[in-house]
Protein backbone atom coordinates (compact mmCIF):
# COMPACT_ATOMS: atom_id res chain seq x y z
CA UNK A 1 0.00 0.00 0.00
CA UNK A 2 1.19 3.50 -0.72
CA UNK A 3 2.28 5.66 2.19
CA UNK A 4 0.47 8.82 3.26
CA UNK A 5 0.06 11.08 0.27
CA UNK A 6 2.74 13.58 -0.59
CA UNK A 7 1.77 17.17 -1.24
CA UNK A 8 3.48 17.21 -4.61
CA UNK A 9 5.23 14.87 -7.01
CA UNK A 10 7.37 16.35 -9.75
CA UNK A 11 8.22 14.12 -12.70
CA UNK A 12 11.49 15.19 -14.30
CA UNK A 13 14.67 16.84 -13.04
CA UNK A 14 15.55 19.32 -15.75
CA UNK A 15 15.38 23.10 -15.15
CA UNK A 16 11.55 23.09 -15.05
CA UNK A 17 11.31 20.28 -12.51
CA UNK A 18 14.15 21.60 -10.37
CA UNK A 19 12.67 25.10 -10.26
CA UNK A 20 9.28 23.66 -9.32
CA UNK A 21 11.11 21.70 -6.62
CA UNK A 22 12.86 24.82 -5.36
CA UNK A 23 9.62 26.78 -5.01
CA UNK A 24 7.74 23.82 -3.53
CA UNK A 25 10.45 23.14 -0.94
CA UNK A 26 10.54 26.77 0.10
CA UNK A 27 6.73 26.68 0.37
CA UNK A 28 7.27 23.71 2.71
CA UNK A 29 5.25 21.34 0.55
CA UNK A 30 6.18 17.74 1.12
CA UNK A 31 7.62 17.12 -2.32
CA UNK A 32 9.37 14.32 -4.14
CA UNK A 33 11.08 14.84 -7.48
CA UNK A 34 11.35 11.72 -9.62
CA UNK A 35 14.13 11.61 -12.17
CA UNK A 36 14.85 8.65 -14.41
CA UNK A 37 18.63 9.00 -14.47
CA UNK A 38 19.92 11.93 -12.47
CA UNK A 39 18.98 15.62 -12.51
CA UNK A 40 19.84 17.69 -15.52
CA UNK A 41 17.72 16.82 -18.47
CA UNK A 42 18.65 17.98 -21.93
CA UNK A 43 20.83 20.77 -20.54
CA UNK A 44 23.40 18.06 -19.80
CA UNK A 45 23.96 17.67 -23.52
CA UNK A 46 24.63 21.40 -23.87
CA UNK A 47 28.26 22.38 -23.72
CA UNK A 48 27.86 26.05 -23.02
CA UNK A 49 24.85 28.20 -22.19
CA UNK A 50 25.07 31.84 -23.25
CA UNK A 51 21.40 32.82 -23.06
CA UNK A 52 20.57 32.18 -19.42
CA UNK A 53 20.62 35.48 -17.52
CA UNK A 54 22.99 36.01 -14.63
CA UNK A 55 26.03 34.39 -16.21
CA UNK A 56 27.73 37.18 -18.17
CA UNK A 57 30.48 34.87 -19.39
CA UNK A 58 28.08 31.98 -19.98
CA UNK A 59 28.05 28.74 -18.03
CA UNK A 60 28.43 25.07 -18.85
CA UNK A 61 25.19 23.11 -19.08
CA UNK A 62 26.34 20.68 -16.43
CA UNK A 63 27.43 23.43 -14.04
CA UNK A 64 24.12 25.26 -14.42
CA UNK A 65 21.90 22.29 -13.58
CA UNK A 66 24.26 21.14 -10.87
CA UNK A 67 23.86 24.56 -9.23
CA UNK A 68 20.08 24.28 -9.57
CA UNK A 69 20.15 20.84 -7.94
CA UNK A 70 22.31 22.04 -5.05
CA UNK A 71 20.04 25.02 -4.52
CA UNK A 72 17.02 22.68 -4.29
CA UNK A 73 18.77 20.37 -1.88
CA UNK A 74 19.62 23.32 0.34
CA UNK A 75 15.88 23.71 0.94
CA UNK A 76 15.39 20.01 1.50
CA UNK A 77 13.98 18.82 -1.84
CA UNK A 78 13.93 15.04 -2.03
CA UNK A 79 15.25 13.92 -5.43
CA UNK A 80 14.98 10.20 -6.15
CA UNK A 81 15.98 8.08 -9.11
CA UNK A 82 12.77 6.39 -10.24
CA UNK A 83 11.06 5.50 -13.49
CA UNK A 84 7.39 6.36 -13.80
CA UNK A 85 5.41 3.74 -15.69
CA UNK A 86 1.97 5.34 -15.53
CA UNK A 87 -0.11 8.02 -13.83
CA UNK A 88 -3.76 7.93 -12.82
CA UNK A 89 -6.35 9.24 -10.38
CA UNK A 90 -7.12 7.86 -6.96
CA UNK A 91 -10.17 9.87 -5.89
CA UNK A 92 -8.98 13.41 -5.22
CA UNK A 93 -5.37 12.22 -5.24
CA UNK A 94 -2.95 11.41 -8.05
CA UNK A 95 -1.44 7.95 -8.27
CA UNK A 96 2.05 7.72 -9.77
CA UNK A 97 3.05 4.15 -10.62
CA UNK A 98 6.76 3.38 -10.42
CA UNK A 99 8.50 0.16 -11.41
CA UNK A 100 8.23 -1.33 -7.94
CA UNK A 101 5.67 0.73 -6.02
CA UNK A 102 2.99 3.38 -6.25
CA UNK A 103 3.05 6.88 -4.82
CA UNK A 104 0.07 9.06 -3.97
CA UNK A 105 0.10 12.83 -3.99
CA UNK A 106 -2.29 15.72 -3.75
CA UNK A 107 -0.77 17.38 -6.80
CA UNK A 108 1.50 16.54 -9.73
CA UNK A 109 3.80 18.57 -11.94
CA UNK A 110 4.71 16.97 -15.25
CA UNK A 111 8.19 18.16 -16.24
CA UNK A 112 9.50 15.11 -18.06
CA UNK A 113 10.86 17.16 -20.93
CA UNK A 114 11.62 16.21 -24.48
CA UNK A 115 14.25 14.35 -26.42
CA UNK A 116 15.78 14.71 -29.88
CA UNK A 117 13.64 13.62 -32.79
CA UNK A 118 15.05 10.92 -35.03
CA UNK A 119 14.89 11.95 -38.66
CA UNK A 120 14.24 8.38 -39.76
CA UNK A 121 16.62 8.15 -42.71
CA UNK A 122 18.21 4.80 -43.63
CA UNK A 123 21.25 4.06 -41.49
CA UNK A 124 20.42 6.57 -38.76
CA UNK A 125 19.14 4.06 -36.21
CA UNK A 126 21.71 1.31 -36.90
CA UNK A 127 24.65 3.70 -36.81
CA UNK A 128 23.69 5.54 -33.61
CA UNK A 129 26.81 5.55 -31.45
CA UNK A 130 28.87 4.52 -34.48
CA UNK A 131 28.97 7.89 -36.17
CA UNK A 132 25.40 9.06 -35.76
CA UNK A 133 25.00 11.33 -32.73
CA UNK A 134 22.51 13.63 -31.03
CA UNK A 135 25.02 15.18 -28.59
CA UNK A 136 27.91 17.23 -29.94
CA UNK A 137 29.32 18.00 -26.49
CA UNK A 138 29.52 14.26 -25.72
CA UNK A 139 30.81 12.99 -29.00
CA UNK A 140 32.46 15.95 -30.73
CA UNK A 141 35.97 15.15 -29.42
CA UNK A 142 35.89 11.80 -31.26
CA UNK A 143 35.98 13.73 -34.55
CA UNK A 144 39.28 15.54 -34.21
CA UNK A 145 40.51 16.46 -37.72
CA UNK A 146 37.64 14.58 -39.34
CA UNK A 147 34.73 15.83 -41.46
CA UNK A 148 31.25 15.77 -39.97
CA UNK A 149 27.72 16.66 -40.98
CA UNK A 150 25.06 18.46 -38.95
CA UNK A 151 21.38 18.27 -39.86
CA UNK A 152 19.00 21.07 -38.91
CA UNK A 153 18.70 24.85 -39.09
CA UNK A 154 17.48 25.96 -35.67
CA UNK A 155 19.41 27.34 -32.70
CA UNK A 156 20.56 23.94 -31.49
CA UNK A 157 21.80 22.78 -34.89
CA UNK A 158 23.73 25.99 -35.45
CA UNK A 159 25.19 26.13 -31.93
CA UNK A 160 26.30 22.53 -32.12
CA UNK A 161 27.75 22.98 -35.61
CA UNK A 162 29.81 25.87 -34.26
CA UNK A 163 30.91 23.77 -31.29
CA UNK A 164 32.02 20.98 -33.62
CA UNK A 165 34.38 23.33 -35.50
CA UNK A 166 36.65 23.07 -32.44
CA UNK A 167 37.40 19.46 -33.34
CA UNK A 168 36.34 18.68 -36.89
CA UNK A 169 38.37 19.70 -39.92
CA UNK A 170 35.15 20.60 -41.71
CA UNK A 171 31.48 20.84 -40.75
CA UNK A 172 28.73 20.42 -43.35
CA UNK A 173 25.39 21.86 -42.28
CA UNK A 174 22.35 20.45 -44.06
CA UNK A 175 19.18 22.48 -43.94
CA UNK A 176 15.98 21.86 -45.83
CA UNK A 177 15.20 25.56 -46.28
CA UNK A 178 17.15 28.34 -47.95
CA UNK A 179 17.52 30.30 -44.73
CA UNK A 180 18.28 29.39 -41.13
CA UNK A 181 15.69 29.56 -38.35
CA UNK A 182 18.44 30.12 -35.78
CA UNK A 183 18.58 33.46 -33.97
CA UNK A 184 20.49 36.44 -35.45
CA UNK A 185 23.79 36.18 -33.59
CA UNK A 186 24.07 32.46 -34.38
CA UNK A 187 23.29 33.03 -38.06
CA UNK A 188 26.03 35.65 -38.23
CA UNK A 189 28.53 33.35 -36.56
CA UNK A 190 27.87 30.30 -38.67
CA UNK A 191 27.84 32.13 -41.97
CA UNK A 192 31.25 33.64 -41.24
CA UNK A 193 32.82 30.42 -39.94
CA UNK A 194 35.33 29.20 -42.55
CA UNK A 195 35.14 25.57 -41.42
CA UNK A 196 31.39 25.41 -42.06
CA UNK A 197 29.70 24.84 -45.40
CA UNK A 198 25.93 25.22 -45.43
CA UNK A 199 24.12 23.00 -47.91
CA UNK A 200 20.90 24.96 -48.44
CA UNK A 201 17.61 23.33 -49.41
CA UNK A 202 18.84 19.82 -48.93
CA UNK A 203 17.53 16.71 -47.21
CA UNK A 204 19.50 13.72 -46.03
CA UNK A 205 18.60 10.49 -47.80
CA UNK A 206 20.88 8.09 -45.96
CA UNK A 207 23.86 7.50 -43.69
CA UNK A 208 26.26 4.79 -44.82
CA UNK A 209 28.80 2.63 -43.00
CA UNK A 210 32.23 1.32 -43.95
CA UNK A 211 33.24 -2.33 -43.47
CA UNK A 212 33.92 -1.68 -39.74
CA UNK A 213 30.34 -0.58 -39.29
CA UNK A 214 31.23 3.06 -38.73
CA UNK A 215 29.74 6.01 -40.61
CA UNK A 216 31.77 6.75 -43.73
CA UNK A 217 29.40 8.75 -45.94
CA UNK A 218 26.01 10.32 -46.24
CA UNK A 219 23.77 10.98 -49.19
CA UNK A 220 21.63 14.06 -49.62
CA UNK A 221 19.21 15.44 -52.13
CA UNK A 222 19.08 18.99 -53.40
CA UNK A 223 15.40 19.94 -53.13
CA UNK A 224 15.64 22.51 -55.93
CA UNK A 225 17.36 20.37 -58.56
CA UNK A 226 16.47 16.88 -57.30
CA UNK A 227 20.14 15.85 -57.62
CA UNK A 228 21.47 13.34 -55.13
CA UNK A 229 25.06 13.60 -53.87
CA UNK A 230 27.23 11.25 -51.83
CA UNK A 231 29.61 12.91 -49.39
CA UNK A 232 32.31 10.96 -47.51
CA UNK A 233 32.55 11.94 -43.83
CA UNK A 234 32.95 10.37 -40.41
CA UNK A 235 30.02 11.52 -38.34
CA UNK A 236 26.51 12.98 -38.59
CA UNK A 237 24.82 14.97 -35.84
CA UNK A 238 21.04 15.34 -35.95
CA UNK A 239 19.29 18.38 -34.44
CA UNK A 240 15.93 18.34 -36.17
CA UNK A 241 13.63 19.07 -33.27
CA UNK A 242 12.30 17.55 -30.10
CA UNK A 243 9.60 15.10 -29.16
CA UNK A 244 7.96 15.10 -25.74
CA UNK A 245 8.50 12.35 -23.18
CA UNK A 246 4.84 11.66 -22.45
CA UNK A 247 4.28 7.98 -23.34
CA UNK A 248 3.82 7.08 -19.68
CA UNK A 249 0.90 9.50 -19.41
CA UNK A 250 -1.41 7.53 -21.72
CA UNK A 251 -4.63 9.55 -21.92
CA UNK A 252 -4.35 10.90 -18.36
CA UNK A 253 -4.04 14.49 -19.59
CA UNK A 254 -4.88 16.09 -22.93
CA UNK A 255 -1.96 16.11 -25.38
CA UNK A 256 -1.57 17.78 -28.75
CA UNK A 257 -0.99 15.74 -31.92
CA UNK A 258 2.76 15.61 -31.37
CA UNK A 259 2.25 14.42 -27.79
CA UNK A 260 3.05 17.66 -25.94
CA UNK A 261 0.90 18.35 -22.85
CA UNK A 262 -1.76 21.01 -23.34
CA UNK A 263 -1.93 23.66 -20.62
CA UNK A 264 -3.72 26.89 -19.91
CA UNK A 265 -1.97 30.15 -19.04
CA UNK A 266 -1.49 28.98 -15.45
CA UNK A 267 0.00 25.71 -16.79
CA UNK A 268 -2.96 23.64 -15.60
CA UNK A 269 -3.54 20.48 -17.63
CA UNK A 270 -6.91 18.90 -18.39
CA UNK A 271 -6.67 16.98 -15.09
CA UNK A 272 -7.41 18.80 -11.80
CA UNK A 273 -4.35 19.03 -9.55
CA UNK A 274 -1.93 18.44 -12.42
CA UNK A 275 0.29 21.06 -14.08
CA UNK A 276 2.92 20.78 -16.81
CA UNK A 277 6.15 22.76 -17.02
CA UNK A 278 9.05 23.11 -19.42
CA UNK A 279 9.74 21.44 -22.75
CA UNK A 280 7.05 18.79 -22.23
CA UNK A 281 4.19 21.23 -22.73
CA UNK A 282 2.77 22.90 -25.79
CA UNK A 283 4.68 26.17 -26.20
CA UNK A 284 6.68 27.99 -28.81
CA UNK A 285 9.99 28.67 -27.12
CA UNK A 286 11.74 25.77 -25.37
CA UNK A 287 14.63 27.27 -23.44
CA UNK A 288 16.13 26.97 -19.96
CA UNK A 289 14.89 30.48 -19.26
CA UNK A 290 11.30 29.61 -20.18
CA UNK A 291 11.43 26.27 -18.35
CA UNK A 292 12.37 27.84 -15.01
CA UNK A 293 9.46 30.29 -15.24
CA UNK A 294 7.14 27.37 -15.92
CA UNK A 295 8.49 25.48 -12.92
CA UNK A 296 7.87 28.41 -10.58
CA UNK A 297 4.35 29.01 -11.91
CA UNK A 298 3.39 25.34 -11.65
CA UNK A 299 4.68 24.98 -8.09
CA UNK A 300 2.91 28.17 -6.98
CA UNK A 301 -0.36 26.94 -8.45
CA UNK A 302 0.05 23.53 -6.83
CA UNK A 303 0.54 25.22 -3.47
CA UNK A 304 -2.62 27.32 -3.88
CA UNK A 305 -4.60 24.26 -5.01
CA UNK A 306 -3.59 22.34 -1.89
CA UNK A 307 -4.62 25.28 0.30
CA UNK A 308 -8.02 25.40 -1.40
CA UNK A 309 -8.85 21.73 -1.77
CA UNK A 310 -7.26 19.89 1.13
Amino acid at each position, binding site marked *: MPDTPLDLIIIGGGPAGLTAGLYASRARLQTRLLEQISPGGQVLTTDWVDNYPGFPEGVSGFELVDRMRRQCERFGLEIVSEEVTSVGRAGNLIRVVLTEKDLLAKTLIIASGAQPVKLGVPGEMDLTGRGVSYCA*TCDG*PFYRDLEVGVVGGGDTAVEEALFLTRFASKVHLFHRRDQLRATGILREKILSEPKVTVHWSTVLTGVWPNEQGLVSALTYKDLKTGDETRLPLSGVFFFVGQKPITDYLGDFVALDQAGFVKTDLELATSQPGVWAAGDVRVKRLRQISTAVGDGATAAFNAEKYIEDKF
Partner: protein
Amino acid sequence: MAGDNLVHVTDGDFESKVLKADKPVLVDFWAAWCGPCKAIGPTVEELAEEYLGQLTVAKMDVDGNPQTPGKYGIRAIPTLMLFKGGQVADQITGAVAKSQIVEAIKKVI
Protein backbone atom coordinates in the same frame (compact mmCIF):
# COMPACT_ATOMS: atom_id res chain seq x y z
CA MET B 1 31.66 1.40 -1.21
CA ALA B 2 31.76 -0.97 -4.11
CA GLY B 3 35.44 -1.67 -3.44
CA ASP B 4 37.06 -4.10 -5.85
CA ASN B 5 33.87 -4.42 -7.79
CA LEU B 6 34.36 -0.96 -9.31
CA VAL B 7 37.64 -0.62 -11.15
CA HIS B 8 39.17 2.04 -13.35
CA VAL B 9 40.76 0.58 -16.45
CA THR B 10 43.16 1.94 -19.06
CA ASP B 11 44.36 0.90 -22.50
CA GLY B 12 47.22 -0.81 -20.67
CA ASP B 13 45.21 -3.08 -18.39
CA PHE B 14 42.01 -3.47 -20.40
CA GLU B 15 43.01 -6.94 -21.53
CA SER B 16 43.85 -8.29 -18.08
CA LYS B 17 41.01 -6.58 -16.20
CA VAL B 18 38.22 -6.88 -18.78
CA LEU B 19 38.95 -9.38 -21.53
CA LYS B 20 40.52 -11.97 -19.24
CA ALA B 21 38.22 -11.41 -16.28
CA ASP B 22 36.51 -14.51 -14.91
CA LYS B 23 33.23 -12.63 -14.34
CA PRO B 24 31.24 -10.57 -16.83
CA VAL B 25 32.36 -6.94 -16.95
CA LEU B 26 30.27 -3.83 -17.55
CA VAL B 27 32.55 -1.14 -19.01
CA ASP B 28 31.44 2.48 -18.77
CA PHE B 29 33.24 4.56 -21.40
CA TRP B 30 33.07 8.14 -20.20
CA ALA B 31 34.83 11.51 -20.18
CA ALA B 32 34.84 14.55 -17.94
CA TRP B 33 33.57 16.76 -20.78
CA CYS B 34 30.35 14.74 -21.17
CA GLY B 35 27.31 15.81 -19.13
CA PRO B 36 25.24 12.66 -19.74
CA CYS B 37 28.26 10.59 -18.59
CA LYS B 38 28.17 12.43 -15.27
CA ALA B 39 24.43 11.83 -15.08
CA ILE B 40 24.75 8.08 -15.56
CA GLY B 41 27.85 7.70 -13.35
CA PRO B 42 26.01 7.26 -10.02
CA THR B 43 23.73 4.61 -11.58
CA VAL B 44 26.73 2.64 -12.82
CA GLU B 45 28.31 2.83 -9.38
CA GLU B 46 25.07 1.60 -7.79
CA LEU B 47 25.08 -1.36 -10.13
CA ALA B 48 28.62 -2.24 -9.05
CA GLU B 49 27.31 -2.60 -5.53
CA GLU B 50 24.06 -4.35 -6.42
CA TYR B 51 25.79 -7.00 -8.54
CA LEU B 52 28.73 -7.49 -6.22
CA GLY B 53 30.20 -10.95 -6.80
CA GLN B 54 28.37 -11.44 -10.09
CA LEU B 55 29.67 -8.62 -12.24
CA THR B 56 32.65 -6.30 -12.32
CA VAL B 57 32.03 -2.69 -13.25
CA ALA B 58 34.89 -0.93 -15.02
CA LYS B 59 35.14 2.73 -15.89
CA MET B 60 37.33 3.88 -18.74
CA ASP B 61 38.06 7.57 -19.30
CA VAL B 62 38.23 7.81 -23.10
CA ASP B 63 40.26 11.00 -22.72
CA GLY B 64 43.73 9.54 -22.38
CA ASN B 65 42.76 6.02 -23.43
CA PRO B 66 42.06 6.28 -27.15
CA GLN B 67 43.04 2.75 -28.23
CA THR B 68 40.29 0.70 -26.64
CA PRO B 69 37.39 2.96 -27.74
CA GLY B 70 38.96 3.01 -31.21
CA LYS B 71 39.19 -0.77 -31.32
CA TYR B 72 35.52 -1.16 -30.45
CA GLY B 73 34.37 1.59 -32.80
CA ILE B 74 33.08 3.81 -29.99
CA ARG B 75 32.21 7.26 -31.26
CA ALA B 76 29.67 8.24 -28.66
CA ILE B 77 29.66 8.44 -24.89
CA PRO B 78 28.40 7.38 -22.51
CA THR B 79 28.67 3.90 -24.00
CA LEU B 80 28.18 0.89 -21.76
CA MET B 81 29.60 -2.40 -23.04
CA LEU B 82 29.11 -5.78 -21.46
CA PHE B 83 31.96 -8.24 -21.89
CA LYS B 84 31.71 -11.93 -21.19
CA GLY B 85 34.61 -14.29 -21.82
CA GLY B 86 36.49 -11.56 -23.68
CA GLN B 87 33.62 -11.00 -26.13
CA VAL B 88 31.19 -8.09 -26.42
CA ALA B 89 27.83 -9.37 -25.19
CA ASP B 90 25.88 -6.13 -25.37
CA GLN B 91 26.26 -2.41 -25.98
CA ILE B 92 24.15 0.53 -24.81
CA THR B 93 24.73 4.06 -26.10
CA GLY B 94 23.57 7.18 -24.29
CA ALA B 95 22.32 7.88 -20.78
CA VAL B 96 19.52 5.34 -20.41
CA ALA B 97 17.32 4.35 -17.50
CA LYS B 98 18.68 1.91 -14.95
CA SER B 99 16.12 -0.74 -15.88
CA GLN B 100 17.52 -0.93 -19.40
CA ILE B 101 21.04 -1.56 -18.07
CA VAL B 102 19.73 -4.13 -15.58
CA GLU B 103 17.97 -5.97 -18.39
CA ALA B 104 21.23 -6.25 -20.31
CA ILE B 105 23.15 -7.35 -17.20
CA LYS B 106 20.63 -10.10 -16.43
CA LYS B 107 21.34 -11.69 -19.81
CA VAL B 108 25.03 -12.19 -19.04
CA ILE B 109 25.13 -13.17 -15.37
